[in-house]
């Protein structure tokens, strides 16, 4: 559908939130017990955090939970009962999700419907509406301005203007949201795209050359580069970068329980870990730097080769939460020929 533009007055947002809770399972930014920002279920509108900062954990768990039961089975005498995974009971509204998280779903979808249609994942995606809130300022470590993804996969996105939000509706799901609460939205009659452009210029989120897509040709020649080892050997192999990443989607399938009752489940897994694919055989990459290289090249070479876009939205979480602050953007620039100096100065020079 062609994009439609509406205006949502700021004093109507609380009402929108409350009314939406009757129709949707509303997920928004809020704080957990430790004060961390999370995508959760705020108890009231006052608990919603309207901040640009990304929560440590992205929104991907609403399509791909960290642990999900695929089949639960139980045997009693001759009878065997097996239940498949449960579809979500209600429509989910991701309210005020960051653009880098919202846009990630469209990228990850391509994997889950590429040959095999992954019903649990696609089922949750079908029930979710993404109502994004565009950042008014660049956040620490993020680099979305260097990756050319746009608004694909985002149902509606709000840009904060003086006293109101300019809401750009892009999909039928987005339109359904606006139609449901139509008395809260007014049709935007100004030059909306011009206002959005001004907003982005002020926020510093306008795309800047060279885009990281342009690193691919050089990355394809850099697999054996002598500096991978020294630059990526500080990687400790935890899964933080992949677990906080909105686009990393590798998983493991495990069985728990015994012969008469148990479950088959799917859990997140990560290529940077020592036991990745150990269920099938073994981790084929024997050194940590090779595991790190795999993550980077999957995002900036292998994935775009097959599916088109980069497997990255530049949210910067993998830098912020990395225990050793490995910077994927800097490494892509270095190995991708966009920059001559290695991050931190480490090089082998052999």
């Amino acid at each position, binding site marked *: 559908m062609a994009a439609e533009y509406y205006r949502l007055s700021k004093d109507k947002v609380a009402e929108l939130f409350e009314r939406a809770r009757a129709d949707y399972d509303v997920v928004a930014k809020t704080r957990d017990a*430790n004060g961390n920002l999370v995508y959760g279920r705020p108890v009231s509108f006052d608990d919603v955090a309207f901040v640009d900062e990304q929560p440590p*954990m992205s929104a991907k768990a609403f399509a791909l939970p960290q642990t999900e039961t695929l089949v639960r089975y139980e045997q009693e005498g001759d009878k065997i009962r097996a239940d498949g995974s449960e579809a979500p009971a209600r429509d989910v509204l991701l309210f005020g999700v960051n653009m880098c998280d919202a846009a990630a779903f469209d990228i990850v979808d391509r994997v889950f419907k590429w040959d095999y249609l992954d019903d649990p994942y696609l089922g949750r995606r079908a029930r979710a509406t993404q109502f994004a809130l565009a950042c008014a300022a660049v956040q620490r470590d993020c680099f979305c301005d260097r990756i050319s993804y746009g608004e694909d996969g985002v149902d509606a996105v709000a840009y904060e203007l003086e006293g109101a939000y300019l809401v750009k509706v892009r999909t039928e799901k987005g339109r359904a949201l606006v139609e449901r609460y139509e008395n809260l939205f007014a049709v935007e009659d100004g030059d909306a795209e011009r206002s959005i452009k001004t907003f982005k210029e002020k926020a510093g989120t306008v795309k800047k050359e060279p885009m990281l897509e342009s690193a691919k040709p050089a990355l394809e020649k850099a697999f054996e580069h002598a500096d991978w080892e020294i630059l990526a050997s500080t990687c400790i192999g935890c899964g933080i970068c992949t677990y906080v990443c909105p686009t990393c989607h590798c998983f493991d399938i495990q069985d728990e329980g015994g012969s008469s009752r148990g479950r088959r*489940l799917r859990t997140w897994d990560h290529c940077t870990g*020592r036991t990745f694919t150990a269920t099938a055989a073994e981790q084929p990459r024997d050194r940590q730097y090779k595991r790190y290289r795999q993550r980077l090249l999957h995002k900036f070479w292998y994935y775009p080769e097959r599916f088109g876009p980069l497997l990255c939205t530049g949210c910067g979480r993998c830098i912020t939460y990395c*225990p050793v602050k490995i910077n994927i953007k800097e490494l892509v620039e270095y190995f991708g020929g966009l920059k001559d100096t290695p991050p931190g*100065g*480490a090089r082998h*020079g052999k």
Partner: protein
Amino acid sequence: MATIKEELQAAAKKLFDDDRVDYFVGYAEDYGHTFPAILAKDSDLSRLTFDRKSYNNLANFLPELRGFRVGLICKQCEVRTLNVLAAEGQIERDKLVVVGVPCPAMVDPRKLPQGEADLAALDESYWQEKCRRCPERNTPFADVFVGERVSTPTPAEGWPLLEEVEAMSAEERLAWWREQMSLCIRCYACRLACPLCYCHQCFVEDNKPQWLDKSVGPENNLHYHIIRAIHLAGRCIECQECSRVCPAGIPVDVLNNVLSRDFGERFGYVAGETAETEPALIQYERDDKEDFIL
């Protein structure tokens, strides 16, 4: 007067020029962060630094560099770690050049003020807890010492967060831990950031038999954390890296602190206190308290 940065860079250069090391492990400053860097002879040393965000316990990189001659920046945290690793036969001391530094105390990343701040000016209330307890700010057995020695303030007593948790009733405490554990994503960064969790295969990685389910949940998560804490009994040197790196903000080290405190109070034992300190679990004194043995 040369700054600590300049002195460090000169010291690293000299180690390479004199062919004393293959790698120099320190902290680099770039893209707004201070982070560990492994540098080789041809690396650009101009980013080397040592500041109040030099968090990582650099001893954690020694296994990766086994077999090489390594220059390692050692603050008190690394010193105690090296003592434990040496007692456990894990390092080749003759291949290690200990580069001593005066430690300015690290700023707790969770207490960092928003925006630009003069890190050097931040007082004790901004420090990591370990720094308030630190017994010696200057590396005691440095092969090379860089910078001016600093005085060490009287170490703080007690374990504030542990005492807070212990003041709870058993029910409250269980609820608190359950809540903390429900936030854990089992990335195992606490284990991997720990220089004393050096097992090639951790029990959580075994799959024949599989000791721990891979699914996340408060019980599985707590199971992991308790076993890790016990594996570090009498070994943890309280560098707090486990808590610092936790993306969920779980104060993981509270579990380790219980054991550290008990070793101190019951046996007068401090892990890695000196280069001669033997591993706690192979020591025995006739008057060791046994009242906790069932």
